[in-house]
């Protein structure tokens, strides 16, 4: 599938951070699932993820996949958002020696990558430190 088609399909998650909250047990899946992994429920409400959380772990990528080669070195982390959802994303606007487990981060809308000079620009969320 072309990048633009796949990117387009993921717009609700990439742009609006939409997850699926299980009507049975309240657990939020992100990205949304067909079946709740906690209770097996199949009915969900669409909810926006919490915009803030705390970093659980982090790393610095120095040799990245080809489409991110221009951006190295860059930081990536997993954060637990205030609604309990765990999310992996790049960490922007951070000095690497500032990175710390437990560090408060928020979601910001950024350019994630582009398909060269002539291709589409892919937007989405990144973490930025709450200072």
């Amino acid at each position, binding site marked *: 599938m072309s990048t633009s088609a796949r990117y387009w399909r993921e717009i609700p998650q990439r*742009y609006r951070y939409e997850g699926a909250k299980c009507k049975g047990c309240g657990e939020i899946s992100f990205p949304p699932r067909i079946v709740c992994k906690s209770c097996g429920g199949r009915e969900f409400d669409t909810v926006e993820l919490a915009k803030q959380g705390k970093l659980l772990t982090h790393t610095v990528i120095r040799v990245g996949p080809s489409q991110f080669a221009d951006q190295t070195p860059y930081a990536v982390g997993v954060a637990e958002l205030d609604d309990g959802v765990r999310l992996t994303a790049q960490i*922007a606007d951070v000095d690497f020696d500032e990175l710390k487990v437990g560090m408060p981060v928020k979601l910001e*809308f950024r350019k994630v990558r582009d398909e060269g000079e002539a291709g589409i620009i892919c*937007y989405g969320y990144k973490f930025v430190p709450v200072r």
Partner: protein
Amino acid sequence: MAGIIGYGAYIPRNRIKVEEIAKVWGADAPSYKKGLMLREKSVPSPDQDVITMSVEATRSALTRCGIDAKKIGAVYIGSESHPYAVKPSGTVVAEAIGATPDCHCVDFEFACKAGSEAMFVCMGLVDAGAIEYGLAIGADTSQGAPGDALEYSAAAGAAAYIIGKDDGVAKMLATHSFMTDTPDFWRREYMHYPRHAGRFTGEPAYFKHVTGCANALLEKTNSKPSDYAYAVFHQPNGKFPMRVGKMLGFTKEQIEPGWLAPTLGNTYSGSSPMGLTATLDVAKPGDKIFMVSYGSGAGSDGFVFEVTDALPKMREKAPFTRTLLDENKVYIDYGTYTKYRGKIRKGE
């Protein structure tokens, strides 16, 4: 009557000092600092552009007013640095805030006045009853050619306004637009950097249009400069807005709260709209605010606002523009700046 329902601003955290640019080009930093009243400017990170800044500014505006984004019937972004040559910026922003699909969307361009233009059109549509709420954004990540005078000022930032029929936080009491065909600044298709007519950008361009629009608006509203608590003018540098204010009879104290250029630079379409956000951050109920934008080519949009009782409580819900400008900034050197701004030619 239309009013501002919510507002927000966004500024990237990178700054470059005038000295850092001047030393590379052998220019005299003190003369820029004194002559143009510029000390430093904002620089976008490689992952920031007009779309990302517009989304963040709009999210602050929505947080402040708490309206349902689905009720926004128009999304207008004014910019001269839209990321795509063909494909609207507004569709991405509308999708990100959840205003799609029942929404009218256009990208505006008119050099530095495209943002105020978006405000002007939203007002008209609201007053006509065609939409309940409109989103008007002024945002730019403009570039000056390396070594050109514009490189000291061309900066990045965004301001977003939600305009609606209720009085909101500021009533829009009057407007006036003033324009002529004046070739003071332009960029042709496929050109990377704009060109300008040097000193010609002053008297026959900026000063003529800003004073022309301001005087017509004062006459239209039968008011005088001392009737206003604050005034905001387009800020291509620190000096011009102060000078034009003085020419019109406004004081330094009226202009200063929205005078961001000395440490922000010129955010083009974002310039006077961002100055207005900083002014709304401090204004009191009942205050009147006078605003005149300027865009090369050339024209000005003027507005008279009156602050309502709703402003003080609502503005606390998102960061103040001065906080974004003064805190959390990081200084970069010229090498990093050229990399961030794509000014380095790389191998194929």
